[in-house]
C-alpha cells in the first residue's frame, strides 16, 4: 500500500481558502511508512486544516493528497461512495475524541468492521478486544464514553481508528488533555503503531512530546512550511522566527 513515491502520505502544493482567507498557501508534507511526523505551529498556522483536508473532511483549492495510491484532487469533497477505498487507508483521531456517546467503547471499535467490512460480530469483537488490550483499556470495553477518563477515551478513539487497519493515522492535538504520565504512555503506543509500518501525522503544540516521540517535525506559519527536520535539528537549533516564537510560547 505504499504511495507511488514510496511515502504512506504525500501532500503536494496544498492550498486551501476559508472565506476570503487563504489558510494554506502551498504546503508539502510527506510521511513515510513507520514514520511519526509532527505538525507544529502557532494557533492559526494551518495544522488542523491540513489534517481535515487530508482526511477528506473539507475541500482544498490546489495541490494533491496521496494516501497509499489513492489521490485526492482540488474541488468539492467527493461523495462517500467514491471514498470507500480511501477511508480504509486512513484513520483520524479527533482532538475531542468524538466517540459515539450512545455506544460502548467496544461498540465504538466494532462499528466500522461490522458495517463497512461486513465482519460478523464475533470476529469484530475478538479483533476489537485484542486492540483494546494492546492499548490497555480492555477492562473498559463495556463502558460508555461518559464513564471513562480522558486518557481512556483517547485510547478508545485510537482503537476505533485502528480497527480498519489504516496505513496512515492522523491525530489532532493528542496530548492536550493528558498528564505527563499519560503523555509518555501515549508516545509509546504511537511508537509501536509506527513500528507496524504505519505513517503517523500528528498536529501538536507539545514540544516535549515531539522531542520524545516524533521522527520528524514540520514547522508551519501563515499557511506555509517554514522548516522541517528531526526534532533535535529544529527544536534545539531553531532557525526560523516562527520556530523560535513557537518555542518561546511553549
Amino acid at each position: 500500500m505504499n504511495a507511488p513515491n514510496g511515502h504512506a502520505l504525500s501532500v503536494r502544493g496544498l492550498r486551501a481558502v476559508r472565506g476570503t482567507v487563504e489558510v494554506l498557501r502551498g504546503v508539502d508534507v510527506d510521511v513515510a511508512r513507520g514514520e511519526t511526523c509532527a505538525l507544529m505551529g502557532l494557533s492559526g498556522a494551518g495544522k488542523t486544516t491540513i489534517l481535515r483536508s487530508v482526511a477528506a473532511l473539507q475541500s482544498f483549492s490546489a495541490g494533491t493528497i496521496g494516501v497509499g495510491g489513492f489521490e485526492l484532487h482540488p474541488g468539492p469533497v467527493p461523495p462517500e461512495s467514491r471514498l470507500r477505498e480511501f477511508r480504509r487507508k486512513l484513520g483520524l483521531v479527533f482532538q475531542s475524541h468524538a466517540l459515539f456517546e450512545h455506544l460502548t467503547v467496544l461498540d465504538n471499535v466494532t462499528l466500522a468492521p461490522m458495517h463497512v467490512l461486513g465482519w460478523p460480530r464475533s470476529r469484530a469483537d475478538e479483533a476489537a478486544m485484542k486492540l483494546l488490550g494492546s492499548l490497555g483499556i480492555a477492562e473498559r470495553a463495556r463502558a460508555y464514553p461518559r464513564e471513562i477518563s480522558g486518557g481512556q477515551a483517547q485510547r478508545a478513539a485510537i482503537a476505533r481508528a485502528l480497527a480498519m487497519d489504516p496505513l496512515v493515522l492522523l491525530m489532532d492535538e493528542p496530548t492536550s488533555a493528558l498528564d505527563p504520565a499519560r503523555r509518555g504512555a501515549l508516545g509509546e503506543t504511537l511508537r509501536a503503531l509506527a513500528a507496524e509500518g504505519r505513517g503517523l501525522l500528528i498536529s501538536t503544540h507539545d514540544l516535549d512530546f515531539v522531542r520524545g516521540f516524533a521522527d520528524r517535525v514540520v514547522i508551519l506559519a501563515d499557511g506555509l512550511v517554514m522548516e522541517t527536520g528531526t526534532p533535535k535539528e529544529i527544536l534545539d537549533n531553531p532557525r526560523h522566527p516562527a520556530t523560535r516564537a513557537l518555542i518561546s510560547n511553549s
Partner: protein
Amino acid sequence: MRRDECPACRRVLPLRAVRIKMFATRKRDELNAFSVRLAVAAALCAACTSGPGTSRTPSPPLRWGGDAEGGAPFVEADPADPSRVRGFDVEIAELIAKGLHREPQFVQVAWASIQQSVERGDFDIGLSGVEERPDLAAQHALTLPYYEFQEVLAVRPSDTARFRKLGDLAGHRVATLGSTIAYGLLLDEQKRSGLIPVSYDDDVHPYSDLVAGRVDGVLLDNIIADRSLRRTGGFVIQRDPIAPAFYVGVMARANSALRDSVNRILLDGMRDGSVERIMRKWNVWTDAQAMYVNGLLTARTTDSTAGTLPAQGAARATVASYIPSLLRAAVITLLLSCVAMALAVAMGLLIAAGRVYGPLALRVVLAAYVEVIRGTPVLLQLFVLYYGLSSVVRLPAMLAAILGLGLNYAAYESEIYRAALEAIPPVQLEAARTLGLSEMQILRLVRGPQALRLALAPMTNDFVALLKDSSLVSVITVVELTKQTAIYATNIGSWVVPGILCSFVYLAFSLPLSRFARRLERRWSMS
C-alpha cells in the same frame, strides 16, 4: 342537533352540539297520557296564580336559551338581521314571554349544554328542539310537549323495498345523532337484531354518508330528514315512522312555578290557535301534531285528577353500569392513540430525514406540508379526510381517525426529529465518515440513535397530547373515552363522577408514560 344555512353566505353550517341521549323508548299513547296529566296540572295551578296585569313592578326579561347553530326551522340567525334569531322555537319563546308579560331575551347556548345551563341559572327556560325523555323529566322541570315529531328512517332509493323498518337492517350500519331518542332506539335494535348504530355529532353528515354508502340508513326527526332531503336529496324517507317523540321546554328542577305558568300559556296558545299559526308559518304543522293538540285539549276537560308530575320510571344510571362502556371507550382511545402515534413517528422520521438530507425540491414540499398541517386545526383535517375526500375514497371512521391524527402529529414529530438530528455535533458525523460509513449508515447507526435520545422527552409530551386530542375524533363518529363520558354525564345530569372517572383513565395512561420517559432520559443522558 340540526344544521342549516348561514344567513350571510347561505352555505350549510355543520352543527357540533350533541343531542340529549335517550336510551328508553316509549309508546305514543304513554307519552300522550303523560302530556295530558301535565296539561291538567298546569291548568289547575294556573287557577291559583295571579292573572295578567297584576304585577306592579317591571318584570325582568324572560331569558331563554337556545342554539342558533341548530338552524331553521328551530332557531337560526335572521338573514335580515343576524343579530336576531328566528324559528318556531323563537316564536314559542315569544309566545311564552308575552303570556308572562315579560320581554324575551335570547341566550345562545350549545345544544348539549342546555340542561346544565338552565339548572345553573344561565337562563329561565331552554327551547331548542329539546326532546322529551323520562330521565330528563326526572332531573329538570319540563313543560308539556308543544310539538310532536316522528322518528323516520331514511334509506337509499335502491333499498326502499328491503329496508322498511329497523329490524330489516340487521348487520347494517344505521346513523343518527349521538345521545338522542333515535340513538336509544338504535341501541335497543342492536340488542334485538344486530343492527350497527353509528353516532354522529351533526345532522348533515349522516345523510351525506347514507348517499355515499358509508351507512345504510339514517334514523332522525322527520323535520331534520325533510330538511336534508330538500337540501341534498339522494335518499328516500320511509313512509311509516319508526316512533313518535316530543319537543319540550326545559327549566331548572326547582322552577316548577314557572313551568306551571308556561304550561298554562302553551295550553292557551294551543286553544286559541297561536301554536298552530307558528307551526304552520314554519311549515311543520302535521296531522300528527293536530291530533296531539286536539287530544290534549279534550283531555283537559275530562281528566282533572292529575295534579303533579308523574313519577318517572327511568332510574338513574349507577356508576357501575357505565364502567364497562367507559373501559371499552378507553381501549379505543388507547388503541387509536398508539397506532396514530406509531404512524406519526414513522412519517415524522421520513419527513425529518427528507428535510435534512433531501434535495431542495423535496425539502420545499415537506416544509410546505409541515406548515400547512401545523397551521390548520386538526378538527378541520379530520373533517376533510373523512367527509371532504369521501367522493374519492370512503375511509372507515377508525381508519380516518388514525390517519387524521397520525398525519397531523407527523408534522409535529418531524420538527422534533429534525431539530434533534441537527443538534448532533458535526464532529460525530465526521468521525463516522472517517470510518467509511455511508450517509445512510451514519443516519441509522450514529445520528439517528443519538437524535432519538434528544427527541424522547418531546415525543412523550406529544403522545400524551395525542391521547387527549384523540377525543376530537368523535366528530367523525368514533366513540372514544371523552365522547362516552359526555354521554354518561348527560345521562346522569352531572359531570362530577364521569369527569373524575374519565380523568382517572387519562391519567392512568399518561402518568406511567411520563415516568417511563423520565427514566429513559436519565438512562440515556449524555455527558
